[in-house]
């Protein structure tokens, strides 16, 4: 069963993409209904007869037959994709067969991905739409992943779908110039998707791993066609692989959150590290230096170190300096301050923390307060440190963060030495 993990989720994205190509974006809901129907049939049939030899092909064939039914039955009532509009039945079958060909499906996935990352949509709506349509996350699952309410996500997705439905067709990825123009938005959405899994607030470890995995899968997809290969996409993939290599160590044996400083690095996935470093090499061409290059380089420096103390913090600080010029943000400044502290001591780190522009945007982020606490603790000011950790604790977004921060408060109070 292992190889079929997430088969339904993976195939759902492919099926919806292809059916939307056939029915047209204005019939997205119909495409989703057909897919839902195919999965219901699979569930009913497979539970009695077991899985077919090629379950993906079975699902796709079921979706295709349902699509043909719908096209025949509703061609007078509905408007479908223009190329299928006036086909007679004899021509309809081969035309639909062709649209269900393996290569066509791959293209449809790309088209759908690029359509979801429509600049008319806010970034968080793009990410939600990618998750919903291409990764087949239910509204509930997305709400869980983003720690949002079902109603809020429902609204976000419904609006985004309406925008998508107004477009004449799916985004045409075959036009190289348009592909390149839309690519940064797609990269950004995938980056945000990965980050939601990596740094997000969901307490479910499996949910977060899922988000990271889906982001990586879709990034590999945009690496496939020739125009998708610009260095920035390789850099994006590199930072995901290097980040994902650390996922197994982010939670320790007793289910507690483990910071980069304390992680058991023998648990880092060396296979992913190797792939990540290879991708990083591939990204080093051309003249454009993107934020993904810099973030991947930072992840690469961490990957090369056997422990936090052995890390080349000087390089990391200068990489953060570069990142601050490319894409400044309070979070980047925060991470830079932490690196400065590693390099030049906690007092210098605290000075950098004071200098963060827009620090108020970090006010609700528990790890901003935790970082202040950490540096104060290292400077020997236990009570100040404790207050920062308490502030962080009040902002904890899930039980795991809560336990982690509670423990830091205890360390401040008991004076027991820092672990690890």
């Amino acid at each position, binding site marked *: *069963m292992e190889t079929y993990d997430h088969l339904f*989720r993976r195939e*759902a994205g492919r099926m919806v993409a292809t059916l939307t190509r056939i029915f047209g974006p204005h019939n997205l809901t119909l495409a989703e209904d057909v897919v839902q129907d195919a*999965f219901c049939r699979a*569930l*009913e049939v497979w*539970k009695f007869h077991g899985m077919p030899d090629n379950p993906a092909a079975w699902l796709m064939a079921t979706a295709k037959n349902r699509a043909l039914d719908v096209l025949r039955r509703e061609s007078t009532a509905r408007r479908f994709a223009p190329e299928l509009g006036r086909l007679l039945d004899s021509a309809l079958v081969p035309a639909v067969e062709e649209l269900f060909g393996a290569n066509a499906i791959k293209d449809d996935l790309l088209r759908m991905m690029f359509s979801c990352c429509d600049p008319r949509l806010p970034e968080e709506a793009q990410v939600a739409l990618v998750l919903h349509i291409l990764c087949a996350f*239910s509204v*509930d699952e997305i709400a869980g992943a983003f720690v949002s309410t079902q109603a809020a996500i429902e609204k976000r997705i419904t609006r985004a779908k309406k925008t998508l439905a107004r477009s004449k067709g799916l985004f045409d990825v075959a036009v190289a110039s348009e592909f390149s123009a839309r690519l940064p938005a797609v990269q950004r959405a995938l980056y945000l998707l990965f980050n939601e899994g990596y740094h997000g607030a969901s307490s479910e470890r499996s949910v977060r791993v899922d988000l990271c995995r889906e982001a990586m899968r879709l990034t590999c997809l945009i690496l496939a066609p020739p125009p998708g290969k610009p260095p920035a996409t390789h850099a994006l993939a590199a930072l995901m692989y290097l980040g994902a290599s650390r996922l197994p160590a982010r939670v320790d044996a007793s289910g507690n959150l483990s910071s980069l400083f304390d992680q058991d690095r023998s648990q880092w996935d060396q296979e992913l590290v190797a792939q990540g470093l290879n991708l990083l090499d591939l990204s080093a061409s051309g003249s454009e230096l993107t934020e993904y290059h810099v973030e991947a380089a930072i992840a690469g420096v961490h990957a090369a170190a056997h422990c936090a103390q052995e890390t080349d913090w000087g390089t990391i600080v200068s990489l953060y300096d570069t990142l601050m010029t490319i894409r400044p943000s309070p979070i980047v400044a925060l991470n830079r301050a932490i690196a400065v502290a590693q390099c030049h001591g906690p007092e210098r780190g605290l000075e950098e923390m004071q200098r963060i522009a827009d620090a108020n945007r970090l006010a609700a982020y528990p790890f901003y307060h935790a970082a202040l606490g950490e540096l104060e603790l290292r400077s020997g000011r236990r009570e100040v440190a404790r207050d920062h950790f308490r502030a962080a604790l009040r902002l904890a977004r899930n039980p795991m963060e809560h336990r982690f921060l509670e423990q830091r408060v205890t360390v401040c109070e008991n004076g027991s030495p820092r672990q690890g």
Partner: protein
Amino acid sequence: MSEYVFLYRGADRGASPEMMQQRMQKWMAWMKELGEKGHLKDRGHPLERVGKLVRGKKKAVTDGPFAEAKDAIGGYTLIEASDLDQAVELSKGCPILETEDGVVEVRPIMKM
């Protein structure tokens, strides 16, 4: 050993493809376990939710579905068990019971 029919009622759906896959995997694991313990006489078949009803001397034909969708039989399985109690115990592992309307009807097959 006696034979029993499990009749499954209720719509077996999931909120997302991932959930549906999980449901399917539970079914497959349950069937496998029944088989390994020697209780599975025939895995049976799923039934389409629509069909026809032929009624009375006039042989009047009407469309299904029958009663409410949640009451319709979605499939059946032939089970071997020592007695009705054991058959009932076996049915308790059926994943359809995890759904809101899920029902397993356990019926002994009459012997010759």
